[in-house]
């Protein structure tokens, strides 16, 4: 069960990794190559993970398939479960216990009933020894995905009793997914050809969305749908408010109404440090201007307040709270993308750890590259401003050494003198450090 916890723990990092690398990066450490070849001498002491390819592809299944020969050597405990008190009698519609689970490779495993740790989701109280029938500890795995495979569907609609159908009390206990699957999908989006004779339930009409999606008896489903409808309604309201407050805004540079511009250009460029309104394309052109100093182009064209970056936005933001949210979301989104300069450690990012994009190494781990390099600008002989190249001390020393030896070779006489002088210097140095 340890893998359940591990995969949950590594969730946030796993989400940001591309699917092809997910198998490598989601767990905490790389898989031991020697273990895969069957010859790791360190055994359980090995610092790399001992895990088969099988379990790497579908960790949740593999864990269920090998419940007491834990591949990580971590003893199974109840700590990996959330334990809550549930009256067993109140869960009549729980699916039947799963006694065997098949893996993706088609290999089926039947768990040992004596193993106390193995408690699959959707278990039945009768599964536990000791006859805990009336009131029992129900163990809910932390992992949200059901472990059930297609070949072994849980007992659901078909197993309902007539009493459950006619008794809304009992219906209320039906799991949400089951209640939703009872509704006719054709009737939901329009008209069902079967009409009254349809095997599925034709739901009540929702006042908000106007679709027949409300389960006639399942209170939970109705409430959930209402909540979703309300949420989308609120979102739609928010968008219309945003449009209303953005629609008269004109760009301070091109002086056109931003939302009236061509589709690709109808975006606002938000400056974090002032409240002046520009369209994104104009603001970008301004900030890329070469004919002015950095200080000028990084400042707001209206008020000259410097802003380090600009944030694209479909709508205008009025309040500081909205603006904060927009800027935070923007930075979070950028942080999901990989830095084009850093290129997984192969390149060098001029923005250092101030970069908004993600810096990860080849294995997908985040890297702190330190503060950005200070860029030195200097005027060349023509008076043009150029960016000074980075000078490494090593390069300088190598160059000096090269020159030094050549110099000594060319003029031997002077070279000898120089060497003498150097030796004298060295001796002097020695004297300096001499302690009587």
């Amino acid at each position, binding site marked *: 069960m340890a893998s359940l916890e591990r995969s949950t723990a590594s969730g946030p990092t796993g989400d940001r990794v591309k699917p092809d690398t997910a198998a490598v990066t989601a767990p905490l450490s790389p898989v031991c190559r020697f273990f895969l070849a069957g010859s790791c001498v360190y055994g359980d002491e090995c610092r790399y993970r001992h895990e088969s390819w099988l379990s790497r592809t579908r960790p949740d299944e593999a864990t269920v398939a090998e419940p007491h020969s834990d591949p990580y050597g971590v003893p199974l405990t109840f700590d990996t479960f959330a334990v809550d008190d549930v009256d067993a009698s109140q869960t009549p519609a729980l699916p039947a216990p799963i006694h065997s689970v098949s893996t993706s490779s088609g290999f089926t495993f039947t768990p040992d009933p004596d193993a106390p740790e193995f408690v699959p989701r959707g278990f039945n109280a009768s599964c536990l020894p000791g006859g805990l029938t009336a009131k029992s500890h129900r163990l809910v795995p932390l992992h949200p995905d059901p472990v059930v495979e297609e070949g072994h569907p849980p007992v659901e609609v078909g197993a309902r009793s007539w009493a459950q159908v006619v008794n809304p009390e009992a219906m209320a206990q039906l799991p949400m997914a089951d209640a939703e699957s009872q509704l006719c999908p054709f009737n939901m989006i329009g008209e069902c050809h079967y009409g009254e004779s349809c095997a599925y339930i034709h739901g009540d009409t929702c006042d908000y969305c106007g679709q027949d999606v409300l389960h006639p008896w399942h209170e939970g489903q109705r409430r959930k749908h209402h909540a979703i409808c309300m949420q989308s309604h609120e979102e739609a309201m928010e968008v219309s408010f945003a449009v209303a407050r953005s629609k008269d805004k004109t760009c301070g*540079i*091109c*002086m*056109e109404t931003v939302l009236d511009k061509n589709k690709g250009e109808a975006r606002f460029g938000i400056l974090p440090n002032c409240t002046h309104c520009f369209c994104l394309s104009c603001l970008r052109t*301004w900030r890329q*201007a070469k004919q002015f100093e950095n200080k*000028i182009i990084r400042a*707001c*064209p*209206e008020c000259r307040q410097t802003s380090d970056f600009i944030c694209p936005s479909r709508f205008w933001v009025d309040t500081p709270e909205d603006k904060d949210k927009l800027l935070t979301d923007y930075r979070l989104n950028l942080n999901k993308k990989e830095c084009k300069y850093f290129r997984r450690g192969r390149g060098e990012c001029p923005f250092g750890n101030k970069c908004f994009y993600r810096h990860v190494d080849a294995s997908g781990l985040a890297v702190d590259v330190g503060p950005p390099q200070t860029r030195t600008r200097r005027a060349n002989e023509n008076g043009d401003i150029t960016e000074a190249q980075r000078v490494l001390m090593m390069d300088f020393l190598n160059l000096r050494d090269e020159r030094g030896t050549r110099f000594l070779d060319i003029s031997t006489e002077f070279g000898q003198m120089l060497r003498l002088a150097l030796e004298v210097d060295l001796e002097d140095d020695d004297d300096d450090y001499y302690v009587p």
Partner: protein
Amino acid sequence: MSNIAQQRIQREFREVVKSDEVAKSGIELALAHDDLTELVGTIKGPPDTPYEGGTYQLEIRIPDTYPFNPPKVRFVTKIWHPNISSVTGAICLDILKDQWAAAMTLRTVLLSLQALLAAPEPDDPQDAVVARQFSADYKTFFKTAQHWASVFAGAPHEHPDFDRLLTKLKDMGVDESSARVALSSCGWDIHRATEQLFN
């Protein structure tokens, strides 16, 4: 001319022509050609300055990259001012050079120029002679600027002593504008002016 420049000039032109506030502050804008690349600006000399009562014409050229680059502006009307060349009318004003901002408009440029007339900056001169006179002998500068304003910009100032000196030089066969330039730059000292003219 790029699309954005053309549209912006059209908008700005309408803004300046319509606005009452702009008319009150004494700035005007007119098209020199139909293609919007060249305009003629007019500003009134601000009160309590030697330029009061004068009307100054400006030549405004709109670059293709406007508004990301400043318009090129110069005085057509001759003016005696430390930051404006008395010969070419070229203007030394930071916002027309490296301090330009894309949100500035022709209206703000004209208003800035009006402000420049009211507050000369002799430490950053365009015309060194005028700037030197401004710092060393403000009274002479003031009177000279008034004289130039009355001759070129139609300001109602009279300096009969200057006119007398000019007539003297004209009688010596010097044309009027050279005589005025020579006298102005020599602080209306006729001996130095003649020396300068005939050497």
